[in-house]
């Protein structure tokens, strides 16, 4: 070793590992939110780096809207198994059935409905901390988020009442009922995430790479055509998320840049077949990744509202 110097990825990595170990040491029942998306894929590698050769000392938690890309679910389950972790899945469907989540009339997106499901899971397993893959560069409201983001007993985030975060001294103290969201990737950009995936040779779900897919145009984006509704005894989970007669379907070569669920993920037309291609594409991109998510366009303050209500 000739120089005692970290490059930017090594710096971000050591910062994130430090944060993860603080979580393991300071909380009694932490969980790690793992969706199978690119950010949480990085989280898993960081967890391995933080805790090996021990087991990762926390279960993985995922909230399903019921509109997921099947490829993503397959990948999620497989990764959790490979790492020997316990994966807990809670779904919006179950919550609606139990009466803990209530869809707004006419609203197709289930993004907001993830909130009561997540809060329900936190209560069910008495989690005092959930590690998430959010990054500050994703969105304006996130830019002010802390590494350790305090949530009151209702799971709410109060942007005016955040704990100041000084040096690397994270205040993890909670009273009962309160909990913490922790974001080890706070300082990572989209580019950093892909550079890290490349450096660590991490596998990502194949929907990040270009493939042929039937899409339709809505709200200025290409939305994927959902899988066929096969069981007529049940209501169509994708009702409202299917192309209408005036929304012609086209077969395109597309990929996802950021994954929400099928109903709110805009596909981008692109021809990339490797992580290197993706890095080149992002370097040249003129749209931020959230530009392809329908749920944020509703209003400029959309994310802020969801966060206040307990979103990740």
């Amino acid at each position, binding site marked *: 070793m000739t120089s005692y110097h970290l490059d930017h990825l090594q710096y971000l990595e050591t910062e994130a590992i430090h944060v993860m*170990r603080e979580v393991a040491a300071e909380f009694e029942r932490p969980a790690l939110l793992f969706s199978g998306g690119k950010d949480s894929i990085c989280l898993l590698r960081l967890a391995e*780096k933080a*805790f090996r050769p021990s087991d990762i000392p926390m279960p993985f938690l995922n909230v399903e809207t019921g509109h997921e890309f099947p490829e993503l679910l397959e990948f999620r389950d497989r990764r959790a198994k490979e790492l020997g972790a316990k994966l807990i899945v809670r779904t919006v469907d179950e919550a609606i059935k139990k009466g803990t989540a209530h869809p707004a009339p006419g609203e197709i997106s289930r993004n907001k409905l993830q909130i009561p499901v997540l809060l329900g899971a936190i209560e069910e397993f008495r989690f005092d901390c959930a590690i998430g893959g959010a990054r500050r560069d994703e969105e304006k409201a996130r830019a002010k988020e802390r590494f350790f983001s305090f949530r009151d007993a209702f799971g709410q985030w109060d942007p005016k009442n955040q704990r100041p975060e000084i040096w690397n001294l994270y205040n993890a103290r909670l009273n009962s009922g309160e909990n913490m969201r922790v974001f080890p990737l706070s300082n990572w950009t989209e580019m950093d995430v892909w550079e890290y995936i490349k450096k660590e040779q991490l596998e990502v779900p194949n929907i990040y790479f270009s493939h042929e897919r039937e899409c339709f145009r809505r709200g200025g984006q290409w939305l994927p055509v959902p899988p066929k509704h096969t069981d007529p005894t049940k209501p169509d989970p994708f009702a409202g998320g299917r192309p209408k007669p005036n929304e012609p379907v086209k077969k395109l070569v597309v990929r996802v840049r950021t994954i929400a669920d099928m109903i709110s993920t805009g596909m981008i037309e692109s021809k990339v077949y490797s992580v290197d291609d993706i890095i080149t594409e992002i370097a040249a991109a003129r749209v931020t990744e959230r*530009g392809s998510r329908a749920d944020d366009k509703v209003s400029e303050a959309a994310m802020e509202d969801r966060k206040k209500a307990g979103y990740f």
Partner: protein
Amino acid sequence: MPHSQHPIELLRFNTCGSVDDGKSTLIGRLLYDSKNLMEDQLEALERSADITGGGQINLANLTDGLRAEREQGITIDVAYRYIATPKRKFIVADTPGHVQYTRNMVTGASTANLSIVLVDARLGVIEQTRRHSYIAALLGIPHIVFAVNKMDLVDWSEARFIEIRDAIEDFLPKLDAFKDVKFIPISALNGDNVVDASPHTPWYGGPTLLNHLETVHIASDWNLSAFRFPVQWVNRPNNPTNKELHDFRGLSGQLAGGTVKVGQKIMVLPSGLKSTIKEIWTYDGKLPEAFSPQSVTLVLEHDLDISRGDMIIGLENLPGMSSDLQARICWMHQRPLQRGNKYFLKHGSQTVQAIVAGLDSRINIQDYEAEIAPPELAMNGIGEIRLKTSKPLIYDGYKTNRLTGSFILIEQGTNQTVGAGMLLPPLEAVKPEYNDFAI
């Protein structure tokens, strides 16, 4: 291209200035001119310009994140921005200038390598300039830039620029802090000397702001002279079936100072027990040597009783170890700090109880004079205190090491973070009782 062959360094900086000095415009300008803005961000900018800006794009809107702020028209918290150029990556803490938000500046500055202090060329040095310089010095930021902004409004006058520079150079020696100081005449609004050199300042021979940010020497900003390793997490796989892992007992943490080698003799504090480094374990393989701020897992030759909160150190350059501490503190809460108050104190990986044994002085950040024995320290106050802790801290003076010399105070009950402390150098180094190696 933000990615390239050679390793890219990361520089963290914060911006400070009082309201309307042009901080938001400057960051917007840096993002815009260094091509770190995307189409949809520009679009949103244009959309909000139609609503609020009378059609004019307002670069400040890029960083004014929260709705509450937009409504009040002020920045109320610390926001982080990310800029990449082919030479470096930057993490920008946009820290607000409102008087009552000193705590946010301390927050943003605590992790910075460099501070940009904005000065309005028309107003010159004001109370806020002195305050921000003081806080940057207090927090041990090695590099400082005074960006004299709105030069377009003083007709690009070199005389005015020099006048301001002289006024600042007048008080800087009192702070006795920075590795390097730069003065740059800019117009954030028009972009002069921000990313591109200005045609309006032929009398200025220095770098543009971005140029300086890309080249200032930061490699030696970490303390590499004395090995400090706060044990964060004890790594015990407890795996009875795997022979190699069965007895594995590692100490995980991040080097808070110095370097460490396999075979090196070390001491564990507070016990004073000594041992030797057997392995530096990482997920990517064992290392012969590690340095601050790497995160690693140390394995020792001897099986000592070590837990979170202990500190592993080298045998030279010993730290202090004491329950009687002296520190500078920045107060961050409405309920003032008073003598006799009790708090939790978090230092490294250790949390102890602390009682305020004395409030020795309060610093007036306008003239940098100390008021002796004030009754209390209110929100945003900075002072010198004495603390007594329930267990000894193993520490260095903040000036020597920003990580082992800092702590936070947490209010008992509400768990609010109420103070940021910087320890004064220990009066004496630790004198361990045990001199033999553990058996």
